[in-house]
């Protein structure tokens, strides 16, 4: 047999892959041994992982091939940050295109692609991914994990999360993050419901990863925490994860099932077609998870505020018990309000009123938390640092967003503002100010640890803070006013009378974008400077590295 070029290429590819695999393995083992020291690296993985996950650990791509909780956390943090910037650029693109009433540089199809990518990636990639990351990163130290035994599962779930995000990006669906039928079946230039099909698979993968990770968090908190930590002094961040995890486990599977049906529907529509009224069935299944996901995005941010505020005011949290109660009430109550997204979909007056009432009630635990924070700041002495600025801003934005949410939950007002930018404003206040703000506050707090002993540049961080804070206000504020004037959301063009609001919001969007860009530049600049401090941080005080 003569020389075969194909065979040679094939063979050498396999050889290179094997060598690469070996190198990766070698790096991982080597990195682990360096971290653990000679004595500990002989321990079984369950125990050595527990040690690793309690060390103060820095950002490193080696985390992608290690499976202790801290490494998994680092993977999620890096990935969700990238997804945030992907989705954020899409958001700014939409805003800029809306500068003129007629669709300008984005055609309606392109606009819808960006809209879907933005909504889906922000919620599933950034909010959920970021929370998974911070939980994996912070939980082991805050509850002094005894054993870390599910590394392989966590690792597989991470890869599912990553593949899911890629599916969402590549599918270019135009169905918005609801995936309502028949929009999900809409065909665009690249052909067929295939587009939404990809996104749906992506969402399902991420949801499965989220549910399984939640179970892992519950196992960590309830079974594997150190004996010295009893439930009565469990850190509030851990309580917030308990609340979030139960919420996810109780509602996400419903959405997974609905998505499965929906994928089948794209091939052979029998479940959710409008003809027999079952389009509403999908909407109900979707919002059964669709509302909890927004609380999944805020409860851990609550937990972070609870955790950080005392450290910056020098007091204990005003009432630990009220904090726990508030987080647990949020878990229970926010499972009961999903119908407020369907006031105009024909659930019937009685149901509408029930959901309106539960939505008013869910404001109570939210307010309990807010007052708890205010009281803590009142009795203590606030140290104004960059993270405190983010915290104060988060509280204010949450109040605005929450109040506009309660207003939207009034059946009458809802008629007026449903489907307008007032709703978009309602949730951007919370998601930008609270969820995103607290995530960045946590990143700033963890900065010396994550970068292995560097401080962030404070003036740049302040510019980041002020730009994003002002940007949120300008963008969401004008949306809110325009929304009450009837400015419809989810459109690539609009009536000329709304141009003032749209243009002002576009300026807000650009300000936001600049703010986040400055964060990136700060990260690059400060991260590349010589080591100057220790690697400890106030969130993981007890840790010894």
């Amino acid at each position, binding site marked *: 047999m003569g020389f075969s070029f194909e065979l040679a290429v094939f063979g050498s590819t396999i050889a290179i892959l094997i060598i690469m695999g070996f190198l990766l393995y070698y790096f991982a083992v080597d990195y682990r041994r360096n971290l653990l020291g000679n004595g500990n690296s002989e321990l079984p993985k369950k125990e050595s992982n527990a040690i690793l996950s309690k060390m103060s650990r820095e950002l490193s791509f080696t985390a992608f091939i290690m499976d202790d909780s801290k490494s998994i956390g680092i993977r999620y943090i890096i990935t969700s940050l990238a997804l945030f910037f992907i989705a954020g650029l899409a958001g700014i693109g939409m805003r800029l295109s809306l500068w003129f009433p007629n669709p300008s540089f984005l055609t309606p199809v392109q606009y819808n692609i960006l809209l879907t990518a933005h909504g889906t990636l922000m919620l599933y990639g950034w909010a959920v991914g970021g929370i998974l990351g911070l939980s994996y990163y912070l939980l082991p130290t805050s509850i002094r994990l005894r054993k870390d035994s599910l590394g392989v599962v966590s690792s597989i779930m991470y890869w599912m999360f990553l593949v899911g995000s890629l599916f969402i990006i590549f599918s270019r669906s135009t169905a918005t993050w609801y995936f309502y039928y028949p929009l999900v079946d809409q065909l665009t230039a690249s052909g067929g419901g295939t587009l939404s099909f990809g996104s749906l698979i992506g969402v399902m993968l991420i949801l499965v990863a989220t549910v399984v990770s939640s179970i892992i968090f519950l196992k960590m908190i309830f079974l594997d925490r150190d004996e010295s930590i009893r439930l009565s002094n469990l850190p509030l961040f851990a309580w917030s994860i308990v609340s979030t995890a139960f919420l996810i486990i109780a509602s996400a599977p419903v959405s997974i099932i609905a998505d499965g049906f929906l994928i089948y529907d794209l091939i052979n*529509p029998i479940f959710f077609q409008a*003809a027999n009224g079952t389009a509403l069935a999908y909407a109900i299944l979707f919002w059964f998870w669709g509302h909890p996901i927004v609380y999944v995005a805020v409860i851990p941010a609550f937990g972070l505020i609870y955790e950080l505020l005392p450290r910056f005011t020098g007091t204990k949290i005003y009432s630990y018990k009220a904090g726990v109660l508030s987080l647990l009430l949020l878990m229970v109550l926010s499972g009961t309000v999903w119908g407020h997204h369907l006031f105009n979909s024909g659930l019937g007056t009685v149901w509408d009123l029930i959901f309106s009432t539960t939505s008013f009630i869910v404001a109570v635990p939210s307010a309990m938390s807010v007052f708890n924070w205010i009281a803590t700041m009142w009795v203590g002495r606030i140290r104004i640092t960059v993270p405190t600025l983010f915290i104060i801003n988060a509280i204010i934005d949450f109040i605005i967003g929450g109040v506009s949410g309660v207003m939207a939950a009034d059946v009458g007002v809802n008629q007026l503002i449903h489907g307008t930018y007032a709703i978009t404003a309602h949730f951007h206040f919370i998601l930008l100010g609270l969820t995103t703000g607290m995530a960045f506050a946590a990143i700033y707090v963890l900065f010396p640890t994550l970068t292995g002993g560097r401080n962030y540049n404070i003036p740049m961080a302040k510019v980041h803070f002020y730009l994003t804070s002002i940007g949120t206000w300008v963008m969401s504020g004008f949306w809110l006013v325009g929304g009450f004037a009837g400015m419809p959301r989810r459109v690539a063009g609009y009536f000329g009378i709304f141009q003032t609001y749209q243009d002002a919001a576009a300026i807000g969007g650009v300000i936001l974008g600049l703010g986040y860009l400055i964060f990136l530049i700060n990260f690059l600049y400060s991260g590349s400077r010589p080591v100057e401090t220790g690697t400890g941080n106030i969130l993981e005080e007890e840790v010894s590295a």
Partner: protein
Amino acid sequence: MRKTTPLAIFVIVLLAAGGSFVWFVEQSGGSSATTIAPYNSTQVIVLYANYQGWNYNSSIPNPTLYEKTHVLLEFKVIEQDNLPHTLTINPGSNESASNYIVSVNIPAVTGTIVWVNWSFANPGIYTYWCEVHPETMVGKLVLNSTTSNTTNASVASPLPPEIADIVGYSSSIHSPYALRDANEEVW
């Protein structure tokens, strides 16, 4: 942390964001580039969307449609089988999803009627088809210029007589379909 890690993350984030944005908007958005030609008369064309073929239950499935330019063609597309379909029209005699002129989704609920209106500027052969069932649901749309009748004849002549007949057949009372307007042409 290694010195290169922040740079790597910075570059990865920027590339991911920029690359995804380009990927998202690379989608041309199809028909928005083309505009509808001016017209001064209209013509209704009824098409039944069936996965076995357009107008599958009529005597001539996937009929070749003969129409004129600068006439508003009002396609009345009627869903027949609960399956998702599209009405896609592109120039040339082959199916092409990338340079379509019209691409409209037909909801998968039997009996749904979708009106698709378009007026063509250029004479020639076009293909109308369904992107979900490109094998079975495909036919030709032949557009003659409004002004000259001779072109009309010359395009029609090479076709077999039974197809040429159908053009005249359109106003026949033997239509198997109930849903008809005065101005309708049932193929």
